[in-house]
């Protein structure tokens, strides 16, 4: 084991992003983005396609190097202590996978090893039983259904009880039962004090589960608050009223009112 590093930041925030700027060549994908995630909070990052959500998440995960700005995960700087920052977060990404030749048990053992978590066979069986995957323990990852793969992915993201959980469109492609089960697990994690940062295109889901929401467009955060406060603040906005179809203002109306109706590629 490496020596434990105690972070120097005394704040209880699980994620602090300050003045983040990300460039791809001359194109600026993220512009001076700042937000934070508290323990026991589900924070939604919403935006149209190409708004800068994935770039922001990638910078937090350490997959791309920001041009400027600071990111701290559980107090650890992603620039100065990247491995400690990564060890403090769990990540469930859409465009990632595990080796299809490995079985579910082997994947669990691999990632438990990387995170330094020691798990007995009984403990692994217990975890798999909990997510209804005990029968699939010796099945190869490539042979699992989409819903089963999603459950494995969430299990790996949380195997080390991270303080911060990042989820990129976690419910995409799931049937209603799997989606319901996933939200129950996410809410259970919130109750245990984990901070959760997620992106989603489902405004209904964001409105019902997120404690706070940031709406990002053209790389800039244009609104950040609780779902109800976002609705209340923008109730009188003519663009939001125009977007409203049912008479009652919803988060989707606010989102469309603030980001426009044009389809992004």
């Amino acid at each position, binding site marked *: *084991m490496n020596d*434990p590093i*105690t972070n120097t930041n005394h704040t209880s925030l699980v994620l602090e992003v300050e003045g983040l700027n990300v460039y791809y060549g001359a194109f600026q994908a993220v512009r001076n983005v700042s937000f934070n995630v508290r323990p026991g909070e589900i924070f939604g990052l919403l935006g149209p396609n190409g708004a800068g959500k994935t770039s922001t998440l990638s910078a937090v995960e350490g997959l791309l190097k920001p041009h400027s700005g600071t990111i701290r995960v559980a107090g650890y700087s992603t620039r100065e202590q990247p491995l400690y920052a990564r060890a403090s977060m769990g990540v469930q*990404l859409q465009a990632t996978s595990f080796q299809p030749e*490995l079985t579910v048990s082997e994947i669990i053992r*691999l990632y438990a090893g*990387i995170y330094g978590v020691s798990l007995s066979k009984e403990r692994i069986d217990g975890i798999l039983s909990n997510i209804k995957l005990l029968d699939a323990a010796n099945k190869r990852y490539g042979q699992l259904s989409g819903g089963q793969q999603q459950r494995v992915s969430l299990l790996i993201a949380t195997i080390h009880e991270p303080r911060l959980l990042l989820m990129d469109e976690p419910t995409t492609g799931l049937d209603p039962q799997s989606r319901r089960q996933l939200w129950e697990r996410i809410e259970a994690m919130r109750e245990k004090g984990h901070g959760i940062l997620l992106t989603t295109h489902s405004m209904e889901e964001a409105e019902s589960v997120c404690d706070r929401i940031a709406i990002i467009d053209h790389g800039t955060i244009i609104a950040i608050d609780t779902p109800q406060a976002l609705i209340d603040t923008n109730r009188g906005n003519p663009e939001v009223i125009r977007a409203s179809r049912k008479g009652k203002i919803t988060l989707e109306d606010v989102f469309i009112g603030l980001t426009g109706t044009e389809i992004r590629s």
Partner: protein
Amino acid sequence: MSTTTLPSTYTVFSHLLRADLTTQWRNRRASLLVVLVPTIILISWKGLVPKFGGAFVLSNCITVGLTAIGLMGYSNTVARDRDKGIFQRLRVAPASNWTIMASRLTVQLMMIVITTLVLFLVGYKFDGITISAGGYFGGLLIAIVGGAVYLSLGQVIVGLIKNPETVNVTTRLVYFAFIMIGMFGELGVLGKEVGDAVKWSPYGTVKHIVSAALTPSTWNEHSWMALLVTLGYTFVFAFLGIKWFRWNSR
């Protein structure tokens, strides 16, 4: 205030290596083909042993095996894992980039050792090629050095090309070209100029040092020069391959 403990580098590496070895084992049909091609050439070249010598035949077949491991084994698995996001998944965990790649390379080095030992055995059993203990030991060591050229060339290919299908096609073409031009050029079938060019190509230098290592008494100034050129190729290919490599295929 929070405290986070990281596992040791050894722990992370050993878990990665175990997973990569399991993956390699489950893809054993592809691994078998990598060993099979030089083995078939070795058996079919039995008639050349009296004319050119055992070391010549064996070193050609070992070089073919090394080419297949570096170009097809390594680059194809890296291209596939990059495209599927397997690397990105590992990189968001506390595993440093070099441990991820070191584990992959270790598996390929093991493949080099296995292929070379199989060829030693087949050469002895079927072609009657006998070499001194020092020759076997030197040949094995130099095969690892020579294999590094092809691993780094494979790295250049996955650095330049992102699409896994294109990587697959390119590596097969390069492999075919190396074998055909290398083997037949060495035999003089393609003319003197090609023969001279092949001598200092990655195929020719690796083939030469393996051959000289198998019969240590023949190791001479040319062998030292070939070793130096081999190391030079490895350094240049590795430098370019690492510089151009992107972890994400998108």
